């Protein structure tokens, strides 16, 4: 299948923080001719219903994504290593905040 070229402006990935101190979550992407316009577009596209208080934008081509073909090699080896979860330890008495 022929790739359909995006003829619009560069794409930016939008990350939003719902409240101060919480991690940024990926919300989606927007077009923007430069970072100011991209920021306005992100605001207008993803912040219409009180979704959050802060925005991060990253040019899509700056994101390094893992290749789906590598998934087996990358992720499967950790499938059967349950001992890596800290579930085999008994909590010492008196330790409250672990």
């Amino acid at each position, binding site marked *: 299948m022929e790739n359909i070229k995006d003829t*619009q*402006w560069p794409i930016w990935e939008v990350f939003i923080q719902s409240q101060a101190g919480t991690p940024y979550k990926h919300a989606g992407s*927007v*077009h*923007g*001719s*430069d970072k*100011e*316009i991209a920021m*306005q*577009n992100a605001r*207008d*596209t993803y912040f*219409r219903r009180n979704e959050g208080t802060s925005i991060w934008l990253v040019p899509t081509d700056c994101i390094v994504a893992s290749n789906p073909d590598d998934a087996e090699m990358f992720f499967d080896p950790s499938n059967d290593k349950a001992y890596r979860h800290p579930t085999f330890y008994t909590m010492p008495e008196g330790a409250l905040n672990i």
Partner: protein
Amino acid sequence: MKHQEALLTLTLRLGDNPLVLGHRLGEWCSKAPILEEDLALTNMALDMIGRAEVLLRYAALIEGKNHTEDDLAYKRGERKFYNHLIVEQPNGNFAFTIARQLYVSLYEFLYYSELMNSKDETLSAIAHKAIKEIKYHLKHASDWTIRLGDGTDERHHKMQEAINELWMFTGELFESDEVDEQMSELGIAPYPADLIGKWKTELIDILSEAKLSLPEESYMQTGSRNGIHTEYLGYILADMQYLQRAYPNAKW
């Protein structure tokens, strides 16, 4: 002029501007140059309709005739509308819409910054809420003015053309009459004529960054303070008021 009458006229003027401009911006829905801009323009339209709603509700209260904000929006005749002529001008191309927004938002920014200190508590509260939206509208319009003005030859040319063509509607923003005098003396609203200096200074800053020139002084259009409009308002109202005129008191 009686206090109530002056306050009503002031509030209608303040309410009619965002009502009509909101309608104009809404016309961009599905037609903007890019999806994101479509959302931006219609978001602004909604900000304005929201502002018009609270202002016209307050106007209806001052009027004291048991009208609602909808009665004032949908059942008033053209000659009773007091919005500035600039907001009823057609959208034209994108540069034209941006130039209109720049002139209006810069004016509103200065006006509402002062309206926040109004001795009228309702107007002050409305201004506090509106100023945040207006700051964004101004940023949007000035960012675009700079990008188009300082862009390719074609962009620059279209932007300058829009700035020039709308210039004759800017004088009206600063017209001040008996109502404004009375309201500003009581500390209820700013005196529009006092805002022109700052408006021009800030406009020149934005235009020079955009490599655009300020139009030369020329004949300025006038009329809206007395309910006299350009041919365009009638079409907007026909569109907006059709349902209530054809089916009086129809409910949603």
